[in-house]
């Protein structure tokens, strides 16, 4: 964990395969708890992280060996930001409007960039005032 002036940063690098997304969820729950989110908000955060992690992973039939999924959890005094990036080569993305709707329902802000080469996401979850 690192950071300055009330901001704490957690960096996590996991293999870019579905089995390891559990570690991203665990880190999200821990970070959400440190921010002071309640149980329901943490459940939502976990769903958002889970959904976006899967969105940036290469599809199972991708020819290249899976790259690592690099995650950064940034704890601000009033919100948590999670960024994820995975080098996917030419692997296709699997994202749907339904998935976007699900994420939009559980986090305050998010973006997803599925350009060729690297897939990235960012989400923000605020603590209620």
């Amino acid at each position, binding site marked *: 964990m690192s950071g300055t002036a009330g901001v704490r940063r957690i960096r996590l690098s996991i293999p870019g395969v579905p089995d390891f997304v*559990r570690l991203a*969820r*665990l880190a999200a*729950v*821990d970070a959400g*708890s440190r921010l*002071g*989110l*309640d*149980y*329901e*908000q*943490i*459940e939502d955060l*976990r*769903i958002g992280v*889970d*959904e976006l992690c*899967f969105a940036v992973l290469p*599809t*199972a*039939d991708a020819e290249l060996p899976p790259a690592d999924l690099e995650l950064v959890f940034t704890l601000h005094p009033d919100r948590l930001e999670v960024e994820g990036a995975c080098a996917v080569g030419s692997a*296709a993305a*699997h994202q*749907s*409007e*339904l*998935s976007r*709707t*699900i994420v939009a*329902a*559980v986090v305050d802000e998010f973006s997803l960039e599925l350009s060729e080469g690297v897939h990235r996401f960012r989400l923000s979850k605020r603590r209620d005032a």
Partner: protein
Amino acid sequence: MTDPDARRRANERFVEYRRTHDRALRNELIEEHIGLAKGLARRFGGRGEAREDLVQVAMVGLLKAVERFEPERGLAFTTFATPTITGELKRHFRDKAWSVRIPRRTQEHVGEVGRAIQSASQRLGRAPSIAELAVETSLTEEEVIEAMEANQAFTAASIDADPAGEGSPVLRDTLAGLEVGFDDVESRVLVDRLLESLDERDRTIITLRFFGGLTQSEIAEQIGVSQMHVSRLLARSLAKLRAELVAEAG
């Protein structure tokens, strides 16, 4: 029911149900024997499962017993229904599988956290924090977090059926006001197709949570299961939707 007349009258109603398959009569027969289902569910308590989840399983057993009971064989309904309901409860525990290996202690923590969520929510009038759940359960915060994650790895197939077979009226009213809408037709068609891959209850939960804005606890209350179970069902549905999406893309 020891009074021969009362037993004869009860059997006549089962005979009528076998002849007519009248839903209202079936629901009456189920209502009249809910006490039996709840009592048997209680016997299976204390094994880490929420009471209302066990009652749901027992209700599935009761429904099966009502459907299968043949009064002409001369047995009392309760004599016939007891092993059917008990069998359903036993099957529930046998079918209960963990998709990854979870230590027994953590399995127990899942049940404790589930109960604590319910009691702390009622007492506080809001969703508890992890720290509050840790105090409530006498577990560490880390153990609570582990239990939350372990809950996702839990599957309990036998709670899937809706004992009433038609969802609750409250749910139907809530769903009627929701529109799962997308601007472009292609997205809407795909979303509809994805949602159709789920069974009715799972689709309902997804719709209420992500389109209706209900919290997991509110959904749990409406469908009569624990919040932890709603969490499991949501996780399973999202995984299934993802698999469907990949299949669509392939």
